[in-house]
């Protein structure tokens, strides 16, 4: 058997599948092979427990570990870094626990915060609203760590309570459309809940739509002045939060595709 075949067979053994590896080991290597097999599963489980610490606390050991077991059985690690292993865990919770949507949303929030922690650097723009002469054509370049996701539950309040080691609130469904906005402010991952209007404005601005057009698209019955005032307030918050890496008047080729 070649080295390639041996390594494929060894991987099968780690996953608990039948393999010819024991026959190829001195004294069948029972105790040693057990160490590798146990370590493989424990390493993946510990990675998920660490990454999704609050989801684990929310679901409890039994439900979380059952979800972890299902995930490990159906997801091989395909990256050189273990940090990537949980990339589909929130989706797996959404399909595995359809009656607990807050769990998948909480897991997504933890994953996004984890990604933001060591995501790409981009200093926040020093511009202020007063520096912007041409709001109509302004375009925005956001922090590269920015991630958005619509949510249906109070997962943010659950996260905050667990972070402070307080008893989390019960699940509540949100009456109005809302989203989580996650990014890194300087060195600290941050998040806040945004309403449906700001969620739409953010998605349009991320898609490189000029500010004037964003105002028109989100006006929703407001006067032009009212929409500009509302969006202006949002942009002020984006600046304050360090969400914006740059603001540019149109046209600016550097912003193409941002």
């Amino acid at each position, binding site marked *: 058997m070649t080295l390639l075949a041996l*390594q494929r067979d060894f*991987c099968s053994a780690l996953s608990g599948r039948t393999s010819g590896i024991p026959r190829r080991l001195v004294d069948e*290597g029972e105790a040693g092979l057990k160490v590798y097999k146990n370590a493989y599963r424990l*390493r993946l489980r510990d990675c998920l427990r660490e990454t999704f610490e609050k989801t684990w606390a929310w679901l409890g050991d039994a439900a979380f570990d059952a979800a972890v077991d299902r995930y490990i059985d159906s997801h091989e690690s395909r990256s050189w*870094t273990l940090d990537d292993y949980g990339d589909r865990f929130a989706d797996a919770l959404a399909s595995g626990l359809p009656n607990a949507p807050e769990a998948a949303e909480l897991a997504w929030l933890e994953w996004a915060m984890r990604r933001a922690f*060591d995501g790409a*650097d981009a200093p926040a723009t020093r511009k202020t609203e007063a520096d912007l002469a041409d709001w109509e054509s302004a375009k925005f370049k956001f922090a590269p760590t920015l991630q958005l996701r619509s949510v249906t539950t109070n997962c943010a309040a659950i996260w905050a309570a667990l972070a402070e080691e307080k008893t989390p609130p019960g699940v509540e469904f949100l009456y109005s459309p809302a989203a989580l906005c996650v990014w890194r402010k300087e060195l600290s991952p941050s998040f806040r809940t945004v309403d449906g209007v700001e969620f739409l404005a953010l998605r349009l601005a991320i898609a490189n739509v000029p500010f004037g057009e964003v105002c028109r698209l989100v006006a929703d019955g407001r006067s032009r002045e009212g929409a500009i005032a509302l969006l202006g307030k949002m942009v002020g918050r984006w600046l304050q939060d360090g969400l914006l890496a740059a603001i540019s008047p149109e046209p600016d080729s550097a912003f193409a595709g941002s």
Partner: protein
Amino acid sequence: MSEQTIPRMQGFGLGLRPKHYNDFLTREIAVDFVEIISENFMVAGGRPLHVLDAVRERHPVAMHGVSMSIGSADGLDPDYLRRLKALAERVRPMWVSDHLCWTAIDGKNSHDLLPLPYTEEALDVVCRNVKFAQDFLERPLLIENPSSYVRFSESTMSEWRFLTELCARAGCYLLLDVNNIHVSGVNHGFDPYAYLAGVPMDRVRQIHLAGPSEGEEILIDTHDHDVPAPVWALYGAVMESIGPIATMIERDEDIPPIDALLSELDAARRISKAKGLERAA
């Protein structure tokens, strides 16, 4: 690449672990170098690289990897190598090291340091991969001897002969983990001093010291205990053989306060100094 050499360096260091980030950023830590786990810093940005840059301003840094998978029969991951090279260009390390093992095959990663059969075929694979990595990174590598828990019946040579052949054919150097020699010696019943006599000591550029755990039937390389007496004895033998060389305490789990590790490092200093005096006598 083949023209490059790594000179011998003396000194005593510690691994940079998150628990000690604040110590390294706010205190003078009496070490001659710091070793990082490369993968912890092969990230786009944020706090890890912020810490690393600050530590690098104060200390020389050695890069130690766990994911190159130098023994993979299907070759190395180009994305991994690109990121490793980018980190090396940022850090300008003393050297870059990884383990004699494999971690992935067909893109599936075990995230473990898995054992190789010590055969001519495996030697060819590892030599090819080491040469490729060295050419890509434009620097020689240090390869660390692993702890292992199984042996393959088809092995035709000892681990120390495998490492000797590897250094000769690929031009790499050795990171000698004395704890790993102890662990594998106990698990596989070989004499660790025969191991030391068998490896090319002139290729050793760094020493790791650590403590294993007692498994049910075998020793496990957990790096979560103080350095035990048999490992100190082996370290003394290495110092007798080659004299002072870059040495560090490698603690990966159950990490104590940094002052405890500095005290343990002082023990290494004393052994190195005493054996050095014996060599000089």
